[in-house]
Structure formats: structure tokens, C-alpha cells
């Protein structure tokens, strides 16, 4: 394991970056920070949380004084990271990916780790973490269920060097299952040679890391890397941008494994003629950029090209789109911990509604859950579907 990431980073490690934020104070990180837009308390923005972190570092603030809103509001959407003047224009020598950034997400991760070390995490997060420890997924679903699901689809690993990594939302959340099965159906029709790991596929570590359990993240990573080696995996296609981000940004020793998000693979297959559309999709559709696919991984084009290639599909962009897209609220600990004053999913649903669309397309099982629930809560007549589901309908 890399020595650099073996040691959990502390606030002291980040002090120069926190100082940078206090020095700069430009406020770019605030206006589109989804947590700030909900709470209107600057303490949850990158500029604010940097001051909170320095306050802790300087013994001005005791950890017990931190409200859950401040520690857990960040969804890791990377707005602050992407827009920050100190990260983008100057040619910063970056070591790895985390050490030199001024990021609200980074600081939130550290504060969550400190809470975890103190054993003062909220019960919803504690339960999700315990489930990952016991079952390899945060829902507490039995591992056998995943094996059966894969068996029923006839997709058990059999020597193929390519796997579809569905992540720990599948097969435990119905909407995520719907998306995964649509994708598998499309890949099968297009005769892609791939298999799945079933219960040997553990959570990638994305959830524990964002919950502040760095140690559990390393356990997941070690397990998954051993499994990939055991089966000689050379190519991973991720259903979830969260897993894609974790593999590409946080895993060490992935040099010999190609990692792709499924939208990239789908577009390659459409572009090369391996996927053809026989049906029209005569609907007005907009697309929500998942933060972990867009700002974090800079994959903006493939999902749009897929949708725009479908016959009769009327594609429209939301106002806040691509780099400026607002978060669905499910990143970080958002899927598990309900902070009463934060309703990013509702806000994003309103933004889709502004465009008078029939469908809101997503490319992430977490966005799918968040936005589907929000549309139903708001009683909007907009169907939330994963891109794979739309492609399947159009084939």
C-alpha cells in the first residue's frame, strides 16, 4: 500500500491549504455549493469549513461543538474544488489527488474521520457502516442475494477479463436494480463479453470513505484488489460514478486495470455501430450530470452523445449543467443521513421541471434514487430513468 495514503491525513497536514482558503476568501466556492444553497449558513461551504477546521486546529473549537449540519452537509460534489481559484489556474504541483487541494469535501472527510474516531457519528451512518462491515453493503442485504441475482442473469464470473461492477446499491435498491438490469440487457444484445463478481464484489469503499471510516475504506480496497487479481480482471465497467471515482482517484495499484464508466462504453458501442436503435423515443429529455461523473471525473460528453443519438429524442439542457450542475444530494452521506433543512434533490427536481421535460435521465444509481423520490414527493409528471433504461427502450 502506498505510504502516502496509508496514514490518514489530519487537519495539521492540511493547515497550509486551510490558510490558503482564509487568505483568498474570494467566495467562489459559496454561491453554487449545494449545501450552502440549502442552509444559507456559510459554515458548510468550503470557505466556511476551512475556518471551522482551522478553529479546531487552533483549539478555538471543540469537536463537540460541531453541529451535524456542518460535518455532514457536504456531498462531495466538488463544486468548490472545481471552481477554486487556488486549484485551477496556478500550476500547482499536485501530489496524488488530495494533499494539496482546498476542498470542502476534503475537510469534511477529515472532520467525519475525527467524529468516527471519537465514536460520535449519527446512528444512521453507524448502521450503514456496520452493514458494510458485516455484509459488504450499506443496506445490510444478504450476500447470497447478490449471488442469486447474478446467477439468475447468467452472468457469474467465468474467466472473462471484463467485469461490470454494479456496486453495493445492487441488488438491494429496486431502482438501482432496474438500471443495472437494463444495462446488462443492452450489453448482452450488443454481445459484449463481460461477467460479474456477485457477492465477491464488495462496496468499493466509496461509502465508508465519505462517512469518515478511512480504515474500512482500506479494507474494502484491499479485498477488491485481491479479488480483481484472483480473477485476472483487466477491465472494469462501473455502473456507479461513485465507484468509478473511487477506483480512479483513490485506489492504488490499478495501473493494469482499465476503468470505464458504463456511459463511455455505451457511447463507444453506439459510435462503432455495435448498438443500433430500432425504436424511436419521442420524448423531451434532460440530463442530470452526476457530480462524481461530471466535475469529479470530467465525463460530460458520453451521456449526452448517447441521448442525442437516440431517434426522436428531444434533448434539452438544464440551466445548471455540466460543470455547473447542482448536486442531487445523494453524495457524501446524503443517501443515508437525512438533514432536515437540506433538500438538494427537491431543488434539482425543480430545475428539471423548469425545462418542461417528460424524462430526467441520470447515469448514477444514487442520483436515480434521490431524484426519483423527489419527483414523486413533488408529484411532478417527470419520469426519472437511468440512461441505460432509455437505451434499452430504444434498441
Amino acid at each position, binding site marked *: 500500500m502506498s505510504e502516502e495514503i496509508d496514514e490518514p491525513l489530519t487537519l495539521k497536514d492540511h493547515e*497550509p*491549504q486551510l*490558510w*490558503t482558503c*482564509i*487568505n*483568498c*476568501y*474570494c*467566495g*467562489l466556492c*459559496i*454561491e*453554487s455549493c449545494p449545501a450552502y444553497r440549502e442552509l*444559507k*449558513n*456559510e*459554515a458548510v461551504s468550503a*470557505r*466556511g469549513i476551512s*475556518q*471551522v477546521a482551522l*478553529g479546531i486546529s487552533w483549539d*478555538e*473549537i471543540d469537536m463537540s*461543538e*460541531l*453541529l451535524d449540519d*456542518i460535518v455532514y452537509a457536504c456531498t462531495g460534489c466538488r463544486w468548490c474544488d472545481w*471552481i477554486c*481559484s*487556488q486549484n*485551477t*489556474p*496556478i*500550476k*500547482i*504541483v*499536485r*501530489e496524488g489527488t488530495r*494533499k*494539496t487541494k482546498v476542498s470542502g469535501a476534503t475537510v469534511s472527510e477529515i472532520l467525519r474521520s475525527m467524529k468516527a474516531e471519537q465514536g460520535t457519528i449519527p446512528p444512521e451512518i453507524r448502521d450503514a457502516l456496520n452493514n458494510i462491515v458485516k455484509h459488504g453493503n450499506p443496506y445490510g442485504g444478504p450476500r447470497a442475494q447478490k449471488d442469486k441475482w447474478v446467477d439468475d442473469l447468467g452472468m457469474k464470473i467465468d474467466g472473462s477479463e471484463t467485469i461490470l461492477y454494479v456496486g453495493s446499491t445492487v441488488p438491494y435498491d429496486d431502482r438501482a436494480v432496474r438500471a443495472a438490469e437494463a444495462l446488462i440487457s443492452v450489453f448482452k444484445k450488443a454481445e459484449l463479453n463481460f461477467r460479474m463478481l456477485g457477492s465477491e464484489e464488495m462496496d468499493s469503499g466509496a461509502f465508508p470513505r465519505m462517512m469518515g471510516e478511512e480504515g474500512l475504506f482500506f479494507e474494502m480496497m484491499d479485498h477488491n484488489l485481491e479479488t480483481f487479481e484472483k480473477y485476472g480482471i483487466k477491465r472494469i465497467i462501473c455502473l456507479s460514478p461513485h465507484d468509478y471515482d473511487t477506483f480512479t482517484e483513490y485506489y492504488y495499484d490499478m495501473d493494469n486495470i482499465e476503468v470505464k464508466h458504463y456511459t463511455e462504453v455505451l457511447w463507444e458501442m453506439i459510435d462503432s455501430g455495435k448498438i443500433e436503435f430500432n425504436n424511436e423515443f419521442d420524448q423531451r429529455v434532460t440530463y442530470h450530470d452526476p457530480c462524481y461523473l461530471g466535475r469529479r471525473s470530467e465525463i460530460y460528453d458520453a451521456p449526452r452523445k448517447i441521448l442525442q443519438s437516440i431517434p426522436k429524442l428531444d434533448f434539452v439542457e438544464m*440551466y445548471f449543467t455540466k460543470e455547473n450542475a447542482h448536486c442531487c444530494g445523494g453524495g457524501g452521506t446524503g443517501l443515508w443521513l437525512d438533514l432536515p*433543512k437540506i433538500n438538494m434533490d427537491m431543488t434539482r427536481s425543480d430545475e428539471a421541471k423548469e425545462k418542461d421535460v417528460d424524462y430526467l435521465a441520470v447515469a448514477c444509481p444514487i442520483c436515480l434514487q434521490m431524484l426519483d423520490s423527489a419527483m414523486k414527493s413533488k408529484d411532478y409528471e417527470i419520469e426519472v430513468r437511468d440512461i441505460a433504461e432509455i437505451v434499452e427502450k430504444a434498441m
Partner: protein
Amino acid sequence: MTEIKAYANVIKSSQEMIDELTTSLGKEKISDDKPTRLVYRITHGPEALLHESLDDFTPAAVVRPTSTEDVQTIIKLADKYGVPIVPQGGRTCTYGAEAMRDCIVIDTATMDKILEIDEGSYRITAEAGVRVVDFHRYLEERGFMCVDFPTMNKAATLGARAALHGYNKFENRWGSAGYHIKGLEVVLPNGEAVWLGRGTSKPTKSVVGLNLMDLFIGSRGTLGVVTKVTERFIDMPPSYVYGIRAFKDYEDGLKTYIDLRKPLNAGLLWRSKAYHRWFLSQAVKGMLEIDFPEDVEMLVDYHILGEPDVVEKMERHAIRIMEDHNGFWRDDMPPTDIIGRMHETIEKYMGMGGLWSDRVVNGGMANRIIPLDPMIPDSRLLEYYKEYLKLLHEIEDGESYPALADSMKVLNPAGPVPGDVGYSKIWILLLANWKKWDSETRKEFKDWFRRHAELALRFDGSITGTHGFIPREMEVDLVRKEVGEKAYEFMKLIKKTIDPKNIMNPKVRF
């Protein structure tokens, strides 16, 4: 002027006020937890560099009103308990919005609704906490344009723009923030809310009564809290061009800049700016990793907006002015758009805090930018500029100010940008390594600042054209020198009449 009450009494009063506010407004609008209080204590401004402890800025609570009525409630309680109030917007300003120990901060960002637009009369009314970027978006979606365009538009709020009379990138054509504001609703220190215009409560000029609104433009929260703003807007210009030329002699560059921004050209030429090589060589090297040409001393650019055929003719006129003063362009110059974007996008502007710091070397700490901006009459610009460059060199020479030389650097010596008609703001950027600032650095900086201020006054200028920063302990003395004794006493009289208990942002002194 009534002094702020003794510190121990302020703490007691603040707590009593918070308790009563909690009852009146509800707990969700008030944050008195330590982390939030620390977050709201400082701003983008340099004043924090001059204090040993940031405790000097820590408020007792942050209150987030959602209506004018909420603000009235807060002010009435502040009046009752004698607790200082500091209104804040985006807190990107460089002076005025820092909190003060045990004050109540009013965070106006929760008052964020656009209330009314009259497209036929080109008037729009919004709450004070609307971010400028959202305001622009609202107008753009309707085919209009807001002509107030601050650098920090993503964070700045409309109310704060009024309270600071902020600098506008289109100043050459349209003037500072206050010139677009046609009406203001303010809550006075007695808790009354009142609509003000220029001599009328209607959002237009009038000769009825007194121009009360302008008392609040640039008043930095010392007379009341701005709660609503009515601004003018224009149709979206269909055409835009940007141009730039290089000059081997800064005198040629400054003459070009002055000619370009003559009032006759201001209809279409919205912005012109000069950049000195002292700045360019550092910025271009830091951002593009290329060397700036040795023989070029100044760049001057222009932005022209309007109808296409008229823009085309105006550009030919602008190019002729530049060539008359030996302006040229060569292939070894940095890309033209990088200069135009340097101030246009805050990302580039603020990213310069990383220059001359560990940030570019190993990702360590960046610097704090200290922006200074004396306003100098164009008729004396050249003469002033020569003397000012000498004064700036003293920061870095190591002999005049040894502590400053070790902890501060000049990023931008002075890029004149249009201020009021016939006046230019000298856009100076200094870089400070905050961690190195100690009592000696503070002492040297104050001494240098005093000389900088006296130089501006000697050339019939103003100490500050935009950002408003004057070290707090020098403010009374320097303001008195700039405006004159009688005007200063008149200001005090107005302040005392409107705010007899001195509860409104009392750290801003005059």
C-alpha cells in the same frame, strides 16, 4: 459621538438580545454556535492582518432574516440592548463587513428573492441578498443585461453593492454600483423601514425633496441596513469586441488609456485598462509558464459593446488611438484573451494569491491579496504614477521596510482603470504572507500606508476608489484629511442624527 458601551456590558447585552431574538424570529434564523461565529468573523479584507487575534472580529451571533420585518425586529432589539450590528453580504469586500467582537451579524443572503421587473421602464427590484450572478442570470434569460458587473459577482450581493458603492468593470461607460441604483429600501437604526430614491420614493431622479438615497450608497452599513434594491438594466448588446496593444514606454500606454476613455468614447467603449509589466511578468509566468517580453512595459486593452455596425466603427477608432501612441502587437506576446480574462474571471484574479508562495512550489500556503486603489485625476496621472512606482519599490528593496520585504511583495504596481469621469482608480495588488506578519510588519505596513495615502491626497486624489480599505486605526485621521474638517463634522452630525446610539457598524468610524 456616542461611544460603544463597555465591553463586558456588550457581552451581557448581546446574550440578552440573542435570547429575545430567538423568541421573536425562531431558532432556525439564528446561529450562535462557535463554529458559525468564527466563520462569519472576517472578510476578504486586509484589516485582519493588522490584528494579533481574530477574536477582535468574532460576533456573538449570526442572524439570517428572510424579510424586511425580520430586519426591523433585529434592529429594534439592537437599539433596545445597545448591541452593535454589522450587516454582511458576500463578505468579499475589503473593508467594512468584518464582524466585531460580540456584535450581531445580519447575514442578508437569506433575503434572495427578485420581486418585480418592469421591462418597459428598465427597472428591476430585488431583495438585498440576491447574488449578483443570479441577478445577471435572471436578466439574461429575459434578453437583458445588468450593467453593474463586479469582479466577485458570484459572491457579491445587491445590498452590499449599494452599501459599498462597489467598483464596476463597465465603469468607463456606466459608473460604479451606486449609479445604477434607482431606489433603496433601508431599515434605519430606529427600526423604521423606508423607501428612498433620488429625491423621491419612486425609483427615478426627481427634484422633489432631498436626495436621501445617496446617503446610504457607500455608507457600509453605518446608517442602516439595505433590504431591497431597485436597479436599472439595458437590452443585451448584440455585439462585443475586445482588443489589446503593447507599449514599450508606459507613458505611451497611459496616454492611450486616457484617450480611449475620453467621455466622447464612453458610449460604446465600456472598459479600458492598462497593465504594467511588473504585474504581467509575474502573472504571465505564473499562469502560462512563459516569459513576458523584456521590451514591453505596458499593455492597454478595450472592451466595446453595442450594435454590430457601430461597434465595428468604434473599434477602428480605438485602434487608431492606440497606433497614434505607438501601440503594437507581436507574435511573442501572451494570448490576448488571457489578459482580457485576467480580471474578467475571478478565478484568474484571485488565483494570483498563489504567486510568490509555496502554493506554486509544493501546494502549500498561498498569499493574501491586499488591494489598494487610490483614485487619481487623469490630468495628474502620469506625474503621480512616477512617484508611486518609487514608493512601491520601497516595499521590496529590503532597506526601507525590512520586515515588509520579508513578508510582502508587489504583484500589480498600478493598472489604471476607469473610475469616475476624468479619474482613474489605480489598481494595486500586494501579496502578503500572513503567517509572517508580526508587530514589526504591522508597524511598517501602517507607515507605508500613510505615505501611500498622503501621496494620493497630494495629487488631489482620493485614498480609495473602490475597496475602501484604510487601516482601522488610521481611518478617522485620513478621512478627515481627505474630505476636510467641515465635511467631516457634517458626516458626524448626520451619523449622530440617524444613529444616536451608534449601533450600526460602529467600527467604521468617521
